């Protein structure tokens, strides 16, 4: 029988016995909090008046939300505007969606191929680990830098944007695909092998068909992410589309109400996609855990 542990000084019964996991947890929280406080105290504001700037931000934010309005000439519409401006904005939204789509499609194809070789149950450990660590390095480079690196070779534009955005897409999807391949019952693969099927037949007749709904769900989830990435690349890497328009509205025209208009358009698309992605996640019990 274990005795109760008492505090040596007060003689009180201890309820919490210090466990290593709790200690580590406390340590992590303490270190993170200390770094945060240190950073916030020492951060360089370049002399900005925080209170005044915050008030200004709130004012701008309110203006964005309550009075969104586009200037027709910014959208290449000369006379009138109105509906024409709206369609021009939709066209730019379409370009961003198209960039996201092409990235997801090309990235998905490459990832499907690599995913088979990254799945531990389909290839040997060496190949699988090799692919995984290579992709970890690929993932460590921010997408915007990939796009800019490719822009040197291919010029700024859709080709550099799509190739640059594909890297993180591939890395993400290879992980998702290979994990769903790894979940396939070992017995199924064994049974096929026993009946004389070769490796290609196993992959194309059993492995991919039985995880097709996962593959499609994950691909859509990545499409949702890629839309947001494509907006950012339009702004930061000149990839065009609605993101570039957002960058122009803020960086050149200084038009807060137009930022509001564009933000609403982007929000509408991403909220619809978020809803669909959530439905898919619920249906297939997908957790994008950290």
């Amino acid at each position, binding site marked *: 029988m274990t005795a109760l542990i008492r505090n040596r000084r007060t003689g009180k019964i201890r309820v919490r016995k210090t466990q*290593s*996991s709790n200690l*580590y*947890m406390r340590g*992590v929280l303490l270190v993170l*909090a200390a*770094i*945060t406080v*240190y*950073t*916030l105290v020492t*951060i*360089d*504001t*370049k002399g*900005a008046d*925080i209170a005044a700037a*915050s008030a200004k*931000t709130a004012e*701008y934010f309110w203006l*964005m939300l309550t009075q969104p309005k586009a200037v027709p000439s910014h959208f290449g519409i000369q006379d009138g505007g109105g509906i024409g401006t709206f369609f021009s904005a939709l066209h730019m939204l*379409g*370009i961003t*969606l*198209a*960039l996201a*789509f*092409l990235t997801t499609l*090309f990235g998905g194809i490459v990832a499907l191929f690599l995913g088979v070789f990254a799945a531990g149950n389909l290839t040997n450990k060496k190949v699988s680990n090799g692919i995984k660590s290579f992709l970890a*390095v690929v993932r*460590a480079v*921010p*997408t*915007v*830098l990939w796009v*800019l*690196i*490719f822009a040197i*070779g*291919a010029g700024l534009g*859709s*080709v550099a944007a*799509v*190739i640059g955005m594909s890297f993180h897409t591939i890395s993400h999807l290879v992980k998702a695909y290979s994990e769903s391949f790894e979940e396939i019952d070992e017995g199924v693969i064994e049974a096929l092998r026993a009946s004389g099927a070769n490796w290609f037949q196993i992959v194309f007749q059993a492995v991919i068909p039985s995880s097709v709904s996962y593959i499609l769900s994950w691909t859509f989830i990545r499409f949702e992410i890629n839309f947001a990435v494509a*907006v950012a690349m339009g*702004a*930061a890497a000149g990839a*065009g*589309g609605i*993101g570039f328009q*957002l960058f122009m509205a*803020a960086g050149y025209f200084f038009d807060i109400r137009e*930022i509001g208009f*564009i*933000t609403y358009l*982007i*929000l509408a698309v*991403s909220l619809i996609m*978020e809803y669909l992605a959530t439905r898919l996640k619920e249906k297939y019990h997908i957790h994008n855990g*950290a």
Partner: protein
Amino acid sequence: MNSLLTNSEGAGTYLKSKRIRLFLFFVGLFAAAALSMAATNYHIEDSFTAIPKVIVWMARNLVPDGKSLTRLPKILDKLFETVLMSVAASVSAAALSFPVALAGSATSCKQRWLMYSARGVASFFRNIPIVAWAMIFLLTFGQSPFTGYVALFFASFGFLARAFIEAIDETAAAPVEALRAAGGSYGHIIFQGVLPSVLPQMVSWVLYMIETNIRSAALVGLLTGSGIGFTFSIYYKSLQYQSASLVVITIVAVVLVIEAVSNKLRRLIL
């Protein structure tokens, strides 16, 4: 015999309809791809020529040289600033996200209107493009590291709130029910039921957010002129690719180290 025949016929039509669906799926995919390429002026042959060209170019030019190495201390300084900014943005956003997540989880919030509005706020902030945050703060706060921090803070807030809501719904529902049944007050339920159940998952999400924010800091830095993104863009725009590549290499090193440390910590705190 008869039934066998109909069965195989059934299987035949099933296979046929499946094949037709597959065919239509690929036709749709192809059409969407063609449309997307036309809309974005994408020439597929360019991508095939660009990739080898860029790889050769990378091997030749993206190699740090002696001059770039003298800049290493300066680069590391900026990188350190970026890491601090990412940690601070992730942690402070988490502190704000937790109460919002408590209101937004069906487990810890019984007022439906409050739950839906908290979820709406989380979703709204999550989907506002990070570019919009960065550009607005650039207009109001000017070009400074603080601007980068604020942009990362708002982008992280929505994401973490959503993640925390899911974590609470998943892991805390059972203990919350038990503490309610035992007569616990709302404070008891949160501090004795929800918090101990979800803390490890929340810390895990914050670690993930720190990794993500270091990468996002490059983007935000490019737009707002702060941190490592700004350093990269200065070298990039002045065609000093050797130094730019050193920036990329240091980012990769830092991200890999942080990823490894986070994975280790995740195992320790679970």
